[in-house]
């Protein structure tokens, strides 16, 4: 057995990590940083759920509560979910799945991490100096004229983090277009790459718009330049249009990579070609494109014109269809598969269940007449948590578990991998399902205190949050434990197909492959019984 010189060992030293150009090291740097922000955002969530155990606002002051939910949203969205899969698993595996040594622009990749860290630090500064109480949505005129918190610092933090996102997307696009290995045509790429490509399109087209919108908020607040000020004829609703033009596609930034991970997991745990590969690939693109045309469904009760609302409603219905297509294709993949009962399967099944509920509940909100009742209530809160936490985070954790042996060269405790999946699934449902009911009963969101009849459901929700937190905590514990004391992982512990499993070590060497160049002659997921002749 030759000596293992993986990307982790060589070169040594902190400086070699902080100045690295290796996409795998940058992925790990991101993994550490986003975990820290997830913990901070999670602490704020804990504060929220503790306060909401009782109807009266008796734990924290109203201003503090407003800061808790605002910062929970800002941190979770800008500093956890948006980078999560792309900056960790994407950075790590896109070059490998393309059969190449690194992303197109390794130094820009490192720059994107530093921008993320700078933005994140500014975010912490905003927390420390006055907090932020505008809601993560920064609606004007409250954010520009009324709030007395650190709006400008927080907006600047999100602005800088946005550039980190843009640079990641831009790197992926150029890499996928220009650096695929010989023989690796678009339709031989793993679906993980397709979904990250679609995500990258959204990142580069959408993020600049939130950037300029935040600039306008900062300009109005600090320089007094009135852009949304109704007193001179400005329009607060214009802010909402500009904000949601990015922030709706942003939710697709948050779910598309997860869908890519799920495609990989479903194929690997079933040892089967993804059913309807081309349909899944094109669905990713369809979601990305249609996702830019639906932002007005956040504005149905904001005085937007009815006719504009009609257009947004119908396109919102359409964007649900490609997601449904993917779900059906994943299910069909499992038919006549050879499905393992190891931990990644648990995470996949958990994702499917939660994503289904999350996606389907979007239909309620896209239906204009119903949205009047449901918007700005806990129904919306439940809906987006089902997708972003139930969907995206389960996919993220599923991916982390699945790729852990490859990225770290260690095996985690397999039974615990299943336990945490179950805890997360159960805890999640207990936390958020009651919130659908709360919303339909009329409980508005962002409420520090509430009428007593809503207490039982809120208590159930808080109880579930405890279990959910335990599930997450357990993951961190055994994953970290495995780094030091875990068994050494083989190159392909799951027996999966793919360049990352079949042609790299665990963990990979610095330049990924031993052969150079890699030549690809098979389609993705080319599972065949031993002895069959395959044709590419």
């Amino acid at each position, binding site marked *: 057995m030759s000596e293992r010189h993986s990307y982790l060992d060589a070169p040594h030293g902190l400086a070699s990590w902080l100045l690295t150009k290796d996409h795998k090291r940058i992925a790990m740097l991101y993994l550490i940083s986003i975990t820290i922000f997830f913990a901070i955002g999670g602490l704020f969530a804990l504060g929220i759920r503790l306060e909401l155990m009782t109807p009266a606002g008796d734990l924290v002051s*109203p201003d503090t509560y*407003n800061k808790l939910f605002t910062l929970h949203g800002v941190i979770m969205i800008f500093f956890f979910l948006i980078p999560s899969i792309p900056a960790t698993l994407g950075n790590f595996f896109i070059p490998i799945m393309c059969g190449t040594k690194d992303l197109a622009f390794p130094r820009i990749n490192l720059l994107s991490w530093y921008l993320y860290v700078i933005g994140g630090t500014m975010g912490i500064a905003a927390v420390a100096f006055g907090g932020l*109480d*505008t809601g993560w949505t920064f*609606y004007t*005129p*409250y954010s520009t004229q*009324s709030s007395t918190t650190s709006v400008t610092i927080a907006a600047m933090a999100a602005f800088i983090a946005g550039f980190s996102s843009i640079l990641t997307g831009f790197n992926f696009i150029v890499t996928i277009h220009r650096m695929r290995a010989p023989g690796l045509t678009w339709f031989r790429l793993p679906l993980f790459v397709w979904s990250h490509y679609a995500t990258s399109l959204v990142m580069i087209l959408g993020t600049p718009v939130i950037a300029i919108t935040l600039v306008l908020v900062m300009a109005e607040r600090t320089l007094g330049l009135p852009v949304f000020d*109704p*007193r*001179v*004829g400005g329009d*607060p609703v214009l802010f909402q249009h500009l904000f949601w033009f990015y922030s709706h596609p942003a939710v697709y930034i948050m779910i598309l990579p997860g869908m890519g991970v799920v495609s990989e997991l479903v194929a690997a745990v*079933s*040892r*089967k*070609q993804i*059913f309807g590969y081309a349909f899944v690939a094109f669905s990713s693109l369809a979601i990305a494109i249609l996702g830019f045309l639906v932002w007005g469904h956040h504005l*149905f*009760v*904001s*005085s937007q014109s009815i006719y504009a*609302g*009609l257009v947004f*409603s*119908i396109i919102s219905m*359409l964007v649900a269809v490609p997601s*449904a*297509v993917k*779900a*059906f*294709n994943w299910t069909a993949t*499992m*038919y*006549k598969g*050879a*499905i*393992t*009962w190891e931990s990644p*399967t648990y995470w996949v*099944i958990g994702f499917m*269940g939660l994503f*289904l*509920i999350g996606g389907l509940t979007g*239909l309620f909100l896209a*239906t*204009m*007449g*119903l949205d*009047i009742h449901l918007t*700005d*209530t806990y129904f919306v809160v439940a809906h987006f948590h089902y997708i972003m936490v139930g969907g995206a985070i389960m996919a993220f954790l599923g991916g982390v578990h699945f790729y852990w042996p490859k990225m770290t060269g260690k095996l985690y405790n397999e039974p615990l991998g299943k336990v945490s999946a179950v805890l997360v699934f159960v805890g999640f449902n207990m936390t958020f399902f009651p919130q659908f009911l709360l919303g339909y*009963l*009329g409980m*508005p969101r*962002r409420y520090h205190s509430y009428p007593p009849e809503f207490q039982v459901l809120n208590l159930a929700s808080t109880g579930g949050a405890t279990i959910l937190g335990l599930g997450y905590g357990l993951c961190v514990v055994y994953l970290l434990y495995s780094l030091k004391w875990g068994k050494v992982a083989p190159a392909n512990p799951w*027996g999966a197909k793919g360049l990352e499993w079949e042609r790299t070590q665990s963990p990979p060497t610095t330049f990924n492959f031993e052969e150079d160049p890699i030549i690809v002659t098979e389609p993705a997921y080319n*599972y065949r*019984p*031993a002895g069959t002749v395959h044709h590419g």
Partner: protein
Amino acid sequence: MATEMDLLYGFIIAVCTFFAVLVSALVVYFTIKYRRQRPEDVGADIHGSLALELTWTFIPFVLALVMFAWGASLFFRLATPPANAMEIFVVGKQWMWKVQHPDGVREINEMHVPINRPIRITLGSEDVLHDYSIPAFRVKMDAVPGRLTTLWFEATTPGEYHIFCAEYCGTKHSGMIGKVIAMTPQDYQAWLAGGRSTGTAAQNGERLFADLACNTCHKPDATGRGPSLHGLFGNTVELADGRKVVADDNYLRESIMNSQAKVVKGYQGIMPAFQGMVSEENLMQLIAYIRTLKPAQPAPDAAGK
């Protein structure tokens, strides 16, 4: 209409439950039935099926269109108050709701209404975004500073119902709550009679019209420096730049607050802007008054002269 909304809600729940159960059951079933038997096993060599893809694209698409159509129809009706609706003016400000009945009775955070009568709320904000939400009636609408919005409902059962502010507005957002008290028409009249009235909205508006000296330029005929406002409300106005606009609530509001925005054809833009000098409530009272101004003579074209 709340019932119809609940019906639509039920329909979507049924569709969603069907698909959620179907897919989840299949996933769990396949995981069990097709469990890997030996470590080297692989799945069957199946790539796809165009027929299946088309089917499961088409069916959700059709269901989604049904939901859209039903929801859109409901929304249209919710956005169109009946002509005979009784109007109530509501102004949101941090952190209270100020309610004014057409005959002048004012309330804070409470709104008495008669049942079996459509009620149209004209909604404004004095500072930041708010949202007037009455979950029991399944209605809500943002109160946007700088403009007026409307919502309507018809209560059918006497009782008390929550009013919530449903657009985050700062510190006491969750304290900006109140109640709708729906009463039988007789009880409502009795309540009104007992209320302290400072005059109807239109009466207050008439007073303001004089106090703010609007009447020095806007005379009932065409002799003033400003156009006559008699018969203006609801008619089309031609502006100096050739555009034609309808003189609705928002037009009146804008012309008072930011008079240069739409100067009427044939007049100079000399009207002062009253931004900062009138509150949202005053605006509603002025608008209520202007609505009552009928044409001085039965002239066919009373607008824009």
